[in-house]
């Protein structure tokens, strides 16, 4: 398969028309295979376009899986969904930043009804079937159990609100972690308005408790940019990935976290990091002359994430976060070091910014 815009359009069409999971699986395998041999595209300036294409394909797979699962539920005698619902993607999928092999981070919101338990039972069954079918398609389940079939992440609008409020009140490390996860949520399927209601509530709660932003800082800057004091990469010292840098946690996630925090503190509601950067510039939070530098940094992280690739484990595509700098050309290495420094400066800026807010 040659990768061009037309291919993506056709692929998405095929996904949309598939009515068996086995068909979806074979389309997924084709997709993986075709990208595998196109590593060079990740170096190009057009990375953000590729990122959009790749994420649209994943979205198509997930959407079609939910649709087919809904149909199967009827076929199996479970009936149609008893209420409206929103199926949410969190994590990198929520930010439109999936690699070729992201795991499942998802949640589900359904309407408030009197027979809550019955409804919940339906949606938990529904969600677990969606999760299982996505596993069939090669999407690994979430290690952290942030998944639509888990009790915590499959709840009614009212329960969601209560839970969010409780997290805000509690403000423990774990609660803050959940709040930051929810900050990247988007609705991929179902009734968007349920999600928008919960999201509006999330922002109200935050507006009422600006101090929570301070608690969020700790989590936001917890991952250090993997650049040593001598300007060297900090690499794995042992094991399979010896000499590699962790591009996910040592480069990409720190940037994501900083822009998420800035977005939350400035009321920017979009979830994609590149859009967050754009809007933060427009809001005058980040100096405009740095727009290009931040964009470049983030796009490089996206491309390196794709370069790091994935492994095929037990029939699933599992992302690899480690990348050996030896695979990079000299100017790419130089660029990465510059961008890691930029990320470190950004982390400092976030911390300073909070200090300033507090004194105002």
């Amino acid at each position: 398969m040659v990768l061009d815009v037309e291919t993506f359009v056709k692929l998405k069409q095929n996904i949309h028309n598939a009515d068996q999971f086995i068909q979806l699986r074979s389309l997924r395998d084709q997709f993986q295979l075709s990208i595998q041999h196109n590593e060079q595209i990740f170096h190009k300036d057009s990375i953000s376009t590729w990122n959009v294409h790749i994420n649209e394909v994943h979205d198509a797979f997930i959407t079609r899986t939910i649709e087919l699962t809904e149909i199967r539920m009827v076929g199996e005698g479970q009936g149609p969904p008893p209420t409206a619902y929103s199926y949410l993607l969190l994590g990198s999928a929520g930010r439109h930043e999936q690699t070729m092999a992201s795991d499942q981070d998802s949640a589900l919101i359904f309407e408030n009804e009197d027979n809550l338990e019955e409804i919940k039972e339906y949606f938990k069954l529904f969600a677990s079937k969606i999760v299982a079918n996505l596993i069939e398609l090669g999407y690994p389940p979430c290690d952290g159990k942030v998944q639509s079939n888990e009790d915590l992440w499959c709840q009614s609008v009212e329960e969601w609100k209560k839970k969010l409020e409780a997290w805000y009140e509690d403000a423990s490390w774990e609660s803050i972690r959940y709040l930051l996860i929810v900050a990247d949520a988007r609705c991929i399927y179902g009734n968007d308005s349920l999600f928008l209601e919960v999201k509006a509530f999330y922002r109200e709660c935050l507006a009422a408790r600006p101090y929570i932003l301070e608690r969020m800082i700790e989590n936001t800057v917890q991952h250090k940019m993997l650049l040593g004091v001598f300007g060297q990469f900090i690499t794995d010292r042992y094991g399979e990935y010896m000499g590699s840098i962790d591009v996910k946690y040592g480069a990409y996630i720190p940037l994501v976290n900083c822009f998420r925090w800035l977005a939350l503190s400035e009321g920017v509601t979009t979830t994609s990091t590149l859009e967050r950067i754009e809007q933060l510039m427009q809001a005058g939070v980040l100096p405009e002359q740095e727009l290009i530098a931040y964009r470049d940094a983030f796009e490089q992280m996206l491309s390196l994430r794709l370069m790091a690739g994935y492994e095929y484990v037990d029939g699933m595509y599992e992302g690899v976060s480690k990348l050996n700098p030896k695979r990079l050309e000299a100017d790419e290495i130089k660029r990465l070091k510059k961008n890691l420094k930029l990320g470190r400066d950004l982390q400092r800026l976030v911390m300073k910014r909070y200090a300033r807010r507090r004194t105002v």
Partner: protein
Amino acid sequence: MVKKTLLALGLISMIFPLAAYASEADLANLTIGLDSLWIMLAFILVLLMQGGFILLEAGSTRMKNAGHVAGKTIFTVALAALVYWAVGYGVAFGSGGGLNAFIGWGEFFFNPATEVLEGESFPSAVFFLFQLAFAAISLSIAWGGFAERAKLGSYIVFTLFYVSFIYPVVAHWIWGGGWLADHGAQDFAGSTVVHLSGAVAALVATILLKPRIGKFNKDGSPNEILGHNQVYTALSVLLLWVGWFGFNAGSTVAIGDGFFAYVGFTTMLAAGAGGVAALLISWAVSGKADITTMLNGVLAGLVAITASCAFVDPWAAVVIGLIAGVLVFYSVKMFEKLKVDDPIYALSVHGMAGIWGTIANGIFATQALADKVGVGQGGLIDTGSFKQLWVQIESVVFAGVFVAIASFIVLGIMKAVMGFRVTEEQEIVGLDLSEHGVYGYPEQLSKTEKA
């Protein structure tokens, strides 16, 4: 107040009439007694360092080998005592024989006088004990190369040869009036004699044994085999650090004019500098302040200052320690790159730092202190002369090569004749079970064994 003081003085002179009205002969006796006690104390401190080695090696290796590691250390010290008494001491310090420049001869099955003899400043038995403790330390350093995969039998065989011949020959060259001593080699308490010798034997052993199962991947990249108890490792360093004052300060073998305190002082500075430098360099280079590296840094500082503790100014002791701390960090990386498995970092801590410490003398030794100790001369910085530096390099090279060849012959023959390494199965089960039949941590491990 004055009354009280006078009263106290009066009482003291009643209790210690000798001290108050000592004759010259009594004073000499007192000096001999104090010196002997000091050496005895130093011997006890150095012997106690074996406790440090038990914790160091056990902490740095896996649970399944813990009992074996601890037990074999005690056992080989026991065996070393007999071997050193029968043969080793005579090779190191025997003064007879026509080849005195290369090997000592005499005093086998050492039978010391029961008291101080005319012209001696301490009983020879206490000197024997002190020297035996050094030999046992060097032996325990060598075990670093054996760790987690050598047969128990090979420990026995190697002890026989190392304590009777290999170690004593080097000790003779530098401390027993051998040819390096004639050249003026400075190794106050054994950076070369004790530490480098042990480390070279460890190197030969680890090369002949090959790495532990799972240490290196097929592509040659190393895996980290974590030790099972970092608290043990930290405690081991404290024990060794304390013991080191017996090692270095005790090597004055006299109370004398109080020079032993100065030796302890430089020792302390270098140890501190080694730990600080190692922590900082690991932090700067790998992004994490690595505890194992820091602990190795303290030990490397101690090993390095062992040769030079009596020869250098305080500032130089700090520099020697700092460099040792950085050196040990890069040395560990280097051995891993060379695919040499060094489970308890003996090659880096005792080998590289031992070499550095010995050579450092040629750079930092001062003329005044060299005169005071009466060995060699000042180093490059103080005198501008390369002579001492050359002598130091010479002792490192010759001692290193001798120990390497001798160990290679002993271990190579042993490997061919009786086998050196346990079987793969035994190694996986652990030496506790394969060599001794019981686990060091029975409750922890028997469950997994059944499962």
